[in-house]
């Protein structure tokens, strides 16, 4: 009971900043600028959300992000599985294993750096296409290691039994290994989803026009650039509608609108994090 109270309290503490963000997003500009909003909105209004959802760019960017997340997930999951499976075999079965392990491990330690990476993507004519957001990071070695170790933990006897029954390597992978690897697949799925949803920098450098930006790049340009300190008052006098977009309520609303979908993904993946699938498959 004591633990329960403590943990609930800690969980609530984590929620506070988000609740404050919600309250700010529904409050009126001047109250927010005076920092007088706590956990409950003051001067309730929804103009921040009206502004976001009346702007078609939000939906364009949302679509780009959905595309890159879905495509990226498919590409990355299949490549990760295809890399991890052979590497999980022993040197006896896969003779070049050590070489390939090092080949991939190098990428964990050394990076080309920003400009060489950009040059490669540019020369491959990927700039300005959705693939520029997907291919450069299609294999993350950390995920491969995760998958590889999970495959290794699966008893060899299962594989031997499958091979004995006439299955090839590919069938063994798809029929035996993958169904047993749901927890690690779910973990990697979550990693990939969150990474694709959250990354903004690649959108900024690989996309040429703002209407091709993924959601987080759009959010970044809106939240960081439209700061009162960047705007001259002459510009404001000329175009007072700029005042609307400099408010903290709008930023709070943007942040919420952009992160809510990915927050919702967590509970749905939760149920795959179940262990004990192997129980009873190997006896004796």
């Amino acid at each position, binding site marked *: 009971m004591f633990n329960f109270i403590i943990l609930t309290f800690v969980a609530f503490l984590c929620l506070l900043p988000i609740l404050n963000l919600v309250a700010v997003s529904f409050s009126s500009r001047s109250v927010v600028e005076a*920092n007088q909003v706590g956990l409950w909105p003051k001067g309730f209004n929804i103009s921040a959300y009206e502004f976001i959802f009346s702007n078609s760019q939000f939906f364009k960017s949302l679509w780009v992000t959905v595309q890159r997340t879905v495509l990226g997930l498919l590409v990355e999951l299949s490549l990760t599985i295809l890399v991890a499976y052979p590497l999980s075999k022993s040197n006896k079965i896969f003779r070049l294993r050590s070489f390939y392990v090092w080949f991939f491990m190098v990428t964990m330690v050394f990076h080309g750096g920003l400009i060489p990476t950009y040059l490669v993507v540019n020369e491959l004519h990927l700039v300005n296409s959705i693939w520029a957001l997907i291919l450069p990071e299609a294999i993350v070695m950390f995920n491969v290691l995760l998958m590889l170790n999970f495959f290794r933990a699966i008893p060899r006897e299962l594989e031997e039994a499958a091979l004995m029954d006439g299955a090839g390597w590919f069938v063994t992978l798809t029929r035996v290994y993958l169904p047993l690897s749901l927890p690690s697949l779910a973990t990697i799925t979550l990693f990939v989803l969150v990474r694709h949803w959250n990354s903004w920098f690649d959108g900024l450098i690989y996309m040429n026009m703002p209407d091709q930006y993924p959601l987080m790049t759009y959010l970044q340009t809106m939240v960081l*650039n439209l700061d009162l300190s960047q705007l001259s*008052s002459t510009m404001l006098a000329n175009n007072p509608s700029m005042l609307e977009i400099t408010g903290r309520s709008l930023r709070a609303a943007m942040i919420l609108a952009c992160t809510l979908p990915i927050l919702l993904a967590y509970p749905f993946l939760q149920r795959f994090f179940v262990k004990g699938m192997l129980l009873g498959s190997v006896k004796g």
Partner: protein
Amino acid sequence: MVLRKGKGKQAALIVSLVLIMLTIAACGNDTNGKEQPSGNDSATTTRPENDGPLAKYEPAIELTAMKNLYGDERYLPGDDLNNNVWTRAYAEELGIKVNYKWAVAGEGFQQKVTMSIASNDLPDIMTLPAKDYFTLAKAGKLADLTPYFDKYASDTLKSTLNADGGKQMKTAYVDGKLYGIPQTGGSDATADMIWIRQDWLENLNLSVPETLDDVIEIAMAFRNDDPDKNGVKDTFGIGFQKDLNSGTGSYEGFFAAYHAYGKAWVRGEDGKITYGALKPGMKDALAKLREMFAEDLIDVEFGVKDWKKVGEDIAAGKIGLFYGREGLPWMSAKDAIVNNPKAEWISVPIVSSDGKPAKPATNVTMERYFAVRADVQYPEALIKIINLFQDRINNPKTTMDMLSKFGVDPVSGINFAAYAFGGLDPSEDKPNMYFQQINAVIEGKETVDNIHPEAVRYYNTIKNYMDKGMDKGADPLGWNYYKFLGPESSWKIISHYRENNLFERSAWFGLPTKTMSQKGATLDKLQEETFIKILTGSAPVSDYDSFVENWKKLGGNQITEEVNEWYNSTFEN
């Protein structure tokens, strides 16, 4: 087993060698593969016969371009960056089809420029950050505009660029040649003034300050005498924040009372430029601030508050006296009024500690230059494009319709000027002119027909606000414009500075010099830490002397030399 292992290693070696070869081959063969498009390759185009600032190319030429955006761009239905009122005007009136290769807002701009330079993929006409402009100009990547400027720059463009006596324009020359047009801007708007809650002054029967002692007296009263009459001692005497170079809660205006400056470079009568923080008055200024802090006039938390946090205190009605700039009617001062309709603000010129008038510091930053790639066939096209913006927006003869079509459309609120390439404002602030014009009309010396249409818009709002008895609720923005450009406005203070020749314009506004980029951050930190320690009483005032010594020793002397060198080579030949 052993044999096998050996084989594996051998194979690995071979494969890695092959991979290395492939990589080298891939790197090698593409350097000459891609020819740069020459920009305007229609061989049949010749320069128009009566060539001039706005003459049209027949047939049309094509130019690629890049754009830095504000981030809030909105378009009419069917329009986009490559098809809007400006690109259509370039095509129809100048015969120039502008294709934007890329566009980006804010900090991403520098990233994209770096990428373009690294991949040798520069557009024909460019907006370049100052640093890249000079690098590319020295590397011979930019077209020399010297022979074209006089012939093609329109009178409006020339007067726009010369509004400050051509100072900003002169920074664009590299070894005596002009490679680009600077994006000029005004510096008057960076001058400090004092903002005071007028209702608090009235509550306590105080009058507007004329000397620094008056300011301190007001600060005392605001701290101790409950100016907002709520029975709680919850107001600060005077608002300051932690940074030396910030707009709201600024120190520059206070230091100016002692004829010293926190950040500005001051050019003396002997022509030598020195750092404002080394001026003799600085020690007294710091001692005075320390006294004020000891008397509890300054928020004890000021050392962790930036200008936004101080802005929150202003908006919440806790600060009623501070040094700030002309934009406050658009910022926290406005929020204070929305939160408390009884609140009212006045702005007054900065005051002096002695008989000598205080001069506010101003500065201008040269951020961008418009330039043309070296191999473009018609470099003057850039000047024509910039001419068109001047013709539509800054031309004294421009009309209200023109402004709605090419500038800000009051109905949709869309700022079309943001899509123009090479939009630049006069290097003296427009509001100076607007303030004069608007108030001449209010006083009946001028008619609305004779002033710039943009000024007419502001005039109408201000007039409307005054006619409705200065009711802050009636028109939500009426108060903003009234306090910004009206008869009791922040630009009135700036115009007072101008008329009495009271600006101390920072003499240095170039790229950071060599030593500055290496040691500037250390010196800035040293300065801020020393100042804050003296202010809060954790270090004696005499520490200022050792700061001066250290500053000079740690690179300050060298920076001063470099700054003088830059000034002399830019303006003295």
